[in-house]
């Protein structure tokens, strides 16, 4: 019986990919281990091998097709003795979705309402918009927006350079620095040895010496090796030198849980860095914020921690087409105005916040959703103004619960808007456990949209 060849997931975070090239054609006999196709994932171009032997009966997805979803059928394989006539319509139809996605796809992702059947969220930007009305917009992934931000700033300032593991010849472990080596050369796009403590310290020295380094950590989990240089050398020198010397530089890279990479590779450091005077801390959600804030970070005369998220790199958003688009630090963005409750989040937490707001709207609860965007400086006023209006607040973040950003916001709201509160502020966070590997446990360790909805219902007494 003909069998389907499905689009494979070739990285832990891959949701879709490009079928770059077929290396077989219809009628070819293949045996296991033969390379069938080249597939571009979110990280690299990978070779896709046959598992079984057989004959390529039909190619369903042609070469060069982009955005092929993982697990979509891409070809039909025939067993010996079968012919193309044996292929019926069913075989070419999409495979039924597996109950438990083997690639560890987040549940929220799988349940995402499709296309037009869900009412679109009413999304509004802050009082002063990030770009002038009428500006042309283009759709870009977070990954592309980050790269463009770096490229633009490197063009504008010769002292800006990028260093990190695999940033140059490999084009970035997560392809964020794609193309930068070609444009700027190996003097300004520098592959480092695997030596986080060393290259972080070296970059601090380079910043003292007049350069503006962008240090990419392959993930912020590895930045713990460099913590002393980030905190003691980069963040504190301006103060310790009485203002004579500082570290104008950016430490950036993916932060937080990816998918199925377990405890040592899944941690949100937002609260850690936000704790430190002398650092600025940015954690964007959308592509336009990623671009506008990274450009501001590179220009900032202080050390900036720029926390990205691997799961967000491939997500697309509108980005304004402007010569020089920046977003100032310390300005939250109101994604959705509402009157019943304030949901405050940042980074990937915004995904849960927005999904929850959408579902709550269906139940008649009108949530205001605020994206902090920067945690240091933090736009307290926007949060407080909103809470004074809604009288209720739920915070959403992926990090651990103890000494979280939500804890801090709760304290500030209590201090400055106590009389306005009609319910305690609730903090939705990741669970107080190291990240487990098992798919079902991981799902429970992370914050979920349902938990946000539940928290909102609690504070609105529904």
């Amino acid at each position, binding site marked *: 019986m003909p069998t389907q060849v499905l689009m494979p997931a070739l990285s832990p975070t891959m949701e879709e990919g490009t079928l770059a090239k077929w290396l077989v054609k219809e009628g070819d006999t293949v045996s296991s281990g033969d390379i069938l196709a080249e597939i571009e994932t979110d990280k690299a171009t990978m070779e896709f091998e046959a598992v079984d032997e057989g004959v390529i009966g039909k190619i369903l997805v042609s070469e060069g097709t982009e955005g092929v979803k993982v697990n979509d059928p891409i070809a039909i394989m025939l067993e010996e003795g079968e012919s193309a006539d044996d292929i019926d319509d069913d075989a070419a139809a999409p495979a039924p979705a597996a109950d438990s996605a083997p690639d560890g796809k987040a549940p929220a992702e799988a349940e995402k309402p499709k296309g037009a059947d869900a009412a679109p969220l009413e999304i509004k930007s802050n009082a002063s918009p990030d770009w002038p009305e009428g500006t042309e917009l283009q759709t870009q992934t977070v990954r592309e927006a980050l790269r463009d931000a770096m490229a633009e700033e490197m063009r504008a300032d010769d*002292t800006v*350079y990028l260093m990190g593991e695999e940033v140059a010849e490999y084009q970035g472990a997560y392809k964020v620095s794609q193309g930068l080596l070609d444009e700027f050369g190996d*003097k300004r796009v520098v592959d*480092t*040895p695997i*030596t986080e*403590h*060393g*290259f*972080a*310290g*070296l*970059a*601090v*020295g*380079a*910043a*003292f*010496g*007049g*350069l503006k380094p962008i240090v990419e950590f392959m993930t912020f989990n590895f930045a713990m090796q460099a913590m*002393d*240089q980030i905190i*003691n*050398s980069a963040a504190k*020198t*301006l*103060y*310790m*030198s*009485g*203002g*004579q*010397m*500082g570290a*104008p530089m950016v430490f950036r890279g993916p932060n937080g849980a990816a998918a199925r990479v377990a405890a040592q590779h899944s941690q949100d450091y937002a609260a850690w860095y936000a704790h430190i*005077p*002398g650092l*600025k801390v940015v954690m964007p959600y959308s592509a336009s914020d990623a671009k506008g804030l990274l450009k501001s970070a590179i220009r900032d*005369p*202080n050390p900036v921690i720029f926390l990205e998220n691997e799961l967000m790199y491939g997500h697309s958003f509108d980005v304004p087409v402007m010569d020089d688009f920046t977003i100032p630090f310390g300005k939250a963005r109101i994604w959705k105005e509402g009157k019943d409750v304030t949901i405050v989040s940042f980074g990937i937490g915004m995904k849960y916040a927005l999904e929850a707001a959408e579902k709550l709207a269906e139940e008649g609860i009108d949530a205001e959703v605020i994206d902090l965007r920067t945690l240091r400086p933090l736009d307290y006023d926007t949060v407080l103004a909103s809470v004074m209006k809604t009288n209720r607040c739920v915070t959403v973040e992926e990090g651990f619960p103890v000494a979280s950003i939500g804890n801090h916001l709760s304290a500030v709201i209590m201090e400055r808007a106590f009389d306005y509160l009609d319910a305690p502020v609730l903090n939705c966070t990741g669970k107080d456990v190291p990240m487990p590997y098992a798919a079902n446990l991981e799902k429970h360790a992370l914050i979920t949209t349902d938990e946000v909805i539940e928290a909102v219902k609690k504070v609105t007494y529904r």
Partner: protein
Amino acid sequence: MATRKTAAKPNVSADELKTYYHDMLLIRRFEEKAGQLYGMGLIGGFCHLYIGQEAVVVGLEAAADEGDKRVTSYRDHGHMLACGMDPNGVMAELTGREGGYSKGKGGSMHMFSKEKNFYGGHGIVGAQVPIGTGLAFADKYLGNDRVSFAYFGDGAANQGQVYESFNMAAVWKLPVIFVIENNQYAMGTSQKRSTSSPEIYKRGEPFGIPGEIVDGMDVLAVKAAGEKAVAHCRSGEGPYILEVKTYRYRGHSMSDPAKYRTREEVQNMREKHDPIEHIRQMLIDGKHATEEDLKEIDKSIKDVVNKSADFAKESPEPALDELWTDIYADVAPQDEDA
């Protein structure tokens, strides 16, 4: 006292010898005064004196040129004086006063001078080594021929980031001189008890970094080795290691009873290997200076040091609003006069 022969026959003028004598004696007298002020409660916290090690920085500064950079650990007073920083500003920082180099906010271990290319003063053992390597990275990137001196001790030589720095400096041929000031004790732990190899300078070999051992009690030997290292770096050959054998007469910090070594050991170094006495003898024996000349130098130094102590006592404590300044820059200080 036995007269020592200096390793390289000095090709130095009497004036240069006198300068080295002056610079080393300034550090010694300054440190003695700092110890005194510490005892009076005018200096607080940690205070690490450089007494005994003066020839290291004075010799290497004699090999450096305008625009070369230096960075060191928390035992940093000598480095600052040797590169020409103002004793008043250094002493006032020790007392935590407004007139200090860091406006009283850094203290003994954290001082900087953009003007003199002194990049600290770092309190975390070994952290200055990648920073010094990065200063060299910046110079190479900017295409000048400046050289950076990254000073660290025999104790720091066991930190991992030192070898991360060796590797990057070698791979990228960075113009950095790693100066291991081997005073033979990492706080209270002798090199024998803490360090697998007696010859630390050889630890650059696996990275392809040339290194040599230098008599750090002989300023002329240090200067000669420094000149060789500087020439190597400046010509684009990459990093160089100098292990400078030296000795600190005082404890690790002011609160160190120094029970880990004998009084005789210290006395022996003081009496037979003192770097300042060595130059003093050369000046007298070579008839480059009379006792009177040297007394004149001693006196002028005493004046400078006393003045710095007076300044450090009289300078007011920082204004309370200084608590809230210099946390974030509006303009990077490096860019201010660019």
